[in-house]
């Protein structure tokens, strides 16, 4: 039973990992930006499952609720705000930036692989280990209302500043 579970876990992980990579490749190659946005959702959902496999239930739920839900919606609205035909008409050629971007992406990939292979982990683990996190969202809540209470309250002010910014910059008539 244990081994079947492990194999199943691996299968799910591989499926999700490859689907998310595929989705990100499709995301950056589609001509229609709305399709790109849909692939972005697929990517977010796959990553959410990977979070679950890492016992991070809370982040998985946030990934679905906030990222796949609200943020993609905002992105779709932004796409709809833009005049995409104008961009096609202007025949904007991004050849060089594509080359530079690809080179940088490959370099970054090698950097990450090097980082994974070459670094020896320092061995320090935080107090919220996988075992503790797997049970519930309680650990997050306890951290939030104990150690992180002060930053938590500050976040509300940060959100208020963002609200004021959104209103003042995009409202048509101010007074």
């Amino acid at each position, binding site marked *: 039973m244990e081994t079947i579970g492990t194999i199943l876990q691996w299968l799910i992980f591989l499926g999700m990992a490859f689907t998310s990579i595929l989705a990100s490749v499709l995301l950056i190659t589609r001509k229609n930006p709305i399709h790109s946005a849909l692939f972005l959702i697929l990517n977010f959902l796959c990553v959410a499952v990977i979070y679950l496999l890492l016992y991070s239930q809370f982040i998985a739920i946030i990934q679905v609720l906030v990222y796949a839900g609200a943020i993609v919606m905002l992105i779709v609205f932004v796409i709809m705000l833009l005049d995409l035909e104008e961009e096609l008409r202007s025949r904007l050629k991004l050849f060089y930036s594509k080359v530079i971007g690809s080179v940088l992406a490959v370099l970054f990939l090698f950097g990450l692989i090097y980082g994974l292979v070459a670094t020896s982990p320092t061995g320090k683990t935080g107090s919220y280990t996988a075992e503790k996190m797997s049970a519930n969202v309680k650990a997050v809540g306890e951290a939030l209302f*104990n*150690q992180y209470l002060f930053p938590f309250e500050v976040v509300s002010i940060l959100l208020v500043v963002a609200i004021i910014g959104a209103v003042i910059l995009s409202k048509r008539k101010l007074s």
Partner: protein
Amino acid sequence: MKLPEIDLYLIAPEIILTAFGFLVLLADVFSPRTEKKGYLGILSLIGIVVAFFYTLPLIGSGKSGFEGMFTADGFALFLKVTFLIIAFITILISMGYAEREGIAFGEYYALILFSTLGMSLMASGTHLITIFLGLETMSIAIYVLAGMLREDRRSVESAFKYFLLGAFATGFLLYGIALLYGATGSLQLKEIATYIASKNLLRNPMLMISLVFLTIGFGFKIASVPFHMWTPDVYEGAPTSITAFMATGVKAAGFAALIRVFFTALPQFRPDWTSIMWLISVATMTVGNIVAISQSNIKRMLAYSSIAHAGYILVAFVAGNDIGISGILFYLMAYAFMNLGAFTCVILLGKKGEENTLITDYSGIGFKYPLLAASMTVFLLSMAGIPPLGGFMAKVYVFSAAVKEKFYWLAILGVLNSAVSVYYYLRVTVLMYFREPQREITGLQFSPASVLALIIALIGTFYMGLFPANVLSFAQKSIVGLM
């Protein structure tokens, strides 16, 4: 189950800033639309003063709280006093200016108060989460303020550019913080230092990358070369009062966080970051001063000059001794006075629609507006580092810190750079007094609040030049226990 410690007295200045921010915001929307809104500025000024009087009693207590998230040590409080002075003068100059440009909404003042709150969190944070949230609160407010002149293309461009590049820099900073957490398992600055020392992680690649990313993130906020590209465009396009706020407040807050993080969490890496910062410091001074010479717009010139000043401050950062860090605090306060003063003059000479911002527009105003031209001269000479003004003493402390730590070349390059800077500061003065006016400048409005701001800035500049010992001893007392 244990409950966290809460000491509201410790964060009283922050609470007051928040409360007044909301008060201004809601006072605007609840008052009739046709009414004159002059009282909003006064309300914000009251908020700053009250916050100031709640900051003063904390000085010397050196308390910290909120589970290692927040401290009210001398360093934080000195900077908080600086931020409050900056916000006070900014609001004073805004009262005439914002009215003139049609942006005197409650939001305008509320955002200034909220970004001041962000700055004081950056100075007081002893946990990277607090510092990061402070940075973001400050930055988002400033992005919006930079784009307040919605009809003006340059202002919109300024906000957009600042936002995109700023978000990118924030990404670097956040990545650096994440790597730091990955390597040490903590975000509390002291705990990080303890862990690095106990495990001897000096050659850990993760920490090295993190160090580079943190340097990029903070380097952007203080406008150091090569992360300065945004500065001239953003400073030129933003409303002038906000440019003044950015050049003084944001820079000071950036230095606050930089010093706090590097000296508290990463002191073991001092040899590494000293060499990086040496290069950045020299590049920042040199690029700032040389490019400033060729500017024709006064706001752009002051932008490059503010880049150069970041370079001078970094000289003391490289030195990193007691006199250096207290010199930085002194410098930030002196720079606040002289730079806000210079921008006040720019505002007083300007007209609706950001007119009269070319340097040639200053020709001959020495005869027509002698007092204004004299004040502008004082501020520019102070920035150039001419005695007996505040800027001179600030430079003396900064360079002598470098000499004391045997960074002779750095000090020499700094002095040479100051000499170069005299050229472009004096050019404006020469234009004001020795040239015929190119075109008639008429119809200037001297709002009483702006004149008051000018007087405060003049007093500050002269006081810090003539009686530097008082402020310096305050600064020296403030950094006890930081390092």
